């Protein structure tokens, strides 16, 4: 089953390389979002904790710009039917999830790099902690965003509904991830962050399980 999901991911990846819809739009969005913050802040000095919070603001809205495409593009074009004819729901879910995970990692790495370069207060003191919480947070973000994307794609809803549905579900993850980012900026040790890390891990596992079980209901009409 994994190779089938991987093949679906490859199909989406190749399609993206060919048409470049998502990549262009997302890259521009990241630049615009960070620019807006820069201009709004002006010459004010922002504290490390504020940059930590804003970091996740940009991550959230960028995710909302780009992660629904995985399902919405199939639904809009009518190729959902095609997928249903060649793959089991679980294959589709895992394939799309893989695509979104890669996309999230790519986007957030760019955001993290830009942030470090642009905001002086964004200095990561505990890099290992940052890296671990980055990886875990990205996975959780991808999982939740993917299942909600599936819902809104089937609802035929416009883009505005996506953040509305995603935010409450992502809230525990965002709150904890912001906390972990602040810890890594402050140089808090890995030991002391264990509880928060455990929260993110359990969030990832729980959301993955729930999404996997519920996807069948969404996908098959």
């Amino acid at each position: 089953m994994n190779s089938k999901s991987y093949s679906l991911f490859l199909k989406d990846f190749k399609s993206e390389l060919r048409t470049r819809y998502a990549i262009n739009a997302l890259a521009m969005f990241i630049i615009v979002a960070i620019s807006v913050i820069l201009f709004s802040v002006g010459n004010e000095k922002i504290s490390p904790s504020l940059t930590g919070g804003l970091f996740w603001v940009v991550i959230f809205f960028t995710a909302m710009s780009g992660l629904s495409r995985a399902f919405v593009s199939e639904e809009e074009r009518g190729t959902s039917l095609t997928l249903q004819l060649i793959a089991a729901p679980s294959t589709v879910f895992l394939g799309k999830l893989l695509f979104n995970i890669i996309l999230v990692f790519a986007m957030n790495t760019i955001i993290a790099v830009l942030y470090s370069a642009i905001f002086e207060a964004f200095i990561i003191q505990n890099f290992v902690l940052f890296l671990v919480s980055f990886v875990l947070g990205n996975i959780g973000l991808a999982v939740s965003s993917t299942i909600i994307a599936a819902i809104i794609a089937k609802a035929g809803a416009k883009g505005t509904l996506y953040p509305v549905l995603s935010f409450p579900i992502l809230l525990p993850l965002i709150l904890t991830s912001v906390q972990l980012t602040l810890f890594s900026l402050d140089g808090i040790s890995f030991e002391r962050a264990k509880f928060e890390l455990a929260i993110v891990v359990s969030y990832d596992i729980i959301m993955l399980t729930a999404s996997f079980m519920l996807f069948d209901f969404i996908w098959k009409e």
Partner: protein
Amino acid sequence: MIWKIFLFLLLAFVSIAGIAFPIVEKPSAWYEFPLIPGLEENAKIIFFHVPTAWLTVVAFFMSTIYSFKYLRKKNLDDDVKSYAAAQLGMIFCILATVTGAVWAKFAWGSYWSWDPRQTSIFALLLIYGAWFALRSSIESEEKRATLSSVYSMIAFVTVPFFIFIMPRIMTGLHPGSADDSNAGPVVDFKMNGNMQLIFFLSLIGFTILYFWMWNVGYRSILLREKLDKKLIRG
């Protein structure tokens, strides 16, 4: 019919008692409440804030349970029951948030301070709002029921995070959170017998009221649907 009159009397008594009974240092008469340091007059809000918060949780659970039933049996009646519960849940959630904010102003100095419980009830408000927004964007009955039921289940799964975990890691002002030394009037039972009685009567009264409203709510929606069908058939 009789129980409706009973309910009316009960809630009337609770409301009057909750608001009018005086708070004194040493309660002697049956209609007097003790003074709880830190809360004083504001303690009375406990008769209304806690039941509304309690009911919003009950409504949420009921809505989720009927969503789950719908996913299993695909019986649209279950979806209607879920919807009726969610409507009431939304109302009580708003009430709980508002009464909570009023209490916060008097007890802690500001209406909102992102205490974990406040954050949780706000998140619940967002979940309800998102759920209704999702429903109103879908025309087909079946799709609407299925997709909103799935969303209910997903939301349900995140709720334990708010209830159990957030209060542990975030310091809060709410009675009973991470850094509060006393567990709060309800848990500690600093209320005397009278207060406890009024409190539990309020809780019971409001709960009965909720179930009654829910029952009337879903039956009226079902009736309306039947009428719509008859009108279309002509």
